[in-house]
């Protein structure tokens, strides 16, 4: 019953509404504006990708700096393993060589 009532009263109204609202003709600007919006979205998307890419690199750089700092700072803070300078090492090596030369030039002592 209800269904029939709905059909009788509303169906003619839907039909009239369909006739009162025909498909409109698209304006001349429809296609150009649509492509402009597509291009604008494409540009927004590519700049968003660039921003993400730049952010990834920035984060990676900061992480690398932190890791390098974590490795290098303790090493720099510890005293160096060698307390003597390169010149001291050379001088020490030189004096040792001198002794060896002197001992080589001395005549061998006669056995008693």
């Amino acid at each position: 019953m209800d269904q029939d009532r709905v059909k009788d009263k509303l169906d003619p109204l839907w039909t009239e509404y369909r006739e009162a609202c025909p498909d409109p003709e698209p304006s001349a600007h429809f296609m150009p504006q649509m492509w402009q919006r597509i291009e604008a979205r494409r540009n927004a998307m590519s700049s968003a990708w660039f921003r993400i890419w730049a952010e990834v690199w920035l984060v990676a750089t900061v992480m690398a700096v932190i890791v390098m700092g974590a490795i290098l700072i303790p090493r720099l803070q510890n005293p160096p393993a060698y307390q003597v300078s390169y010149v001291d090492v050379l001088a020490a090596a030189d004096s040792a060589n001198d002794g060896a030369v002197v001992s080589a030039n001395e005549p061998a002592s006669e056995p008693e």
Partner: protein
Amino acid sequence: MLIEFELIEKARKGDDGAFNQVVQAYRKRILGTIARLIGRPEDVEDVGQEVFLRLYYSLDQLRAAEVFEPWLYRLTVNAAYDYLRRQKRRHEHRMSDLSEQQVMMADASAGGKKQAEEQRRTKVREIVQSLLSKVSEEDRILLMMKEVEGLSLKELEKIYHVNENALKVRLFRARQRVLKAYESGEI
């Protein structure tokens, strides 16, 4: 189908020329549907462009060219729904705009029989828009797609991804609400 499947396939693969042809084939029909769904002639092209914009960026997700039309209608329904929700938030503005629009329509129609015909059409549009304002945006769009656009339950099933029985129940309730408003003379 208004176009060949091959054209959709080409558009799906990124051929902008093919996409242009797809839009040209469907734009009038889609604009008509939008006009009847939203009831605001000045915003029809804006919503229509939004539909085709969404189509452009989602075409690669289309599983098969055969389901293109339900896919396009789904995008249309979603864009109209988003528009109606936005409008609901700006309801106060809408009411003032509407009266202005009515005045413009009355001014625009000129003399005699043509004027009477335009007045009758305007009256029908007002009645239906008022009736539809008594139901939710979802039900309004569903009713329009079924009763005015003439889509079958099978087609609606493909668009809404909801089974036929659920659609029937929803349609029944929406019709009851509209009928109640119609009979009570709330409009």
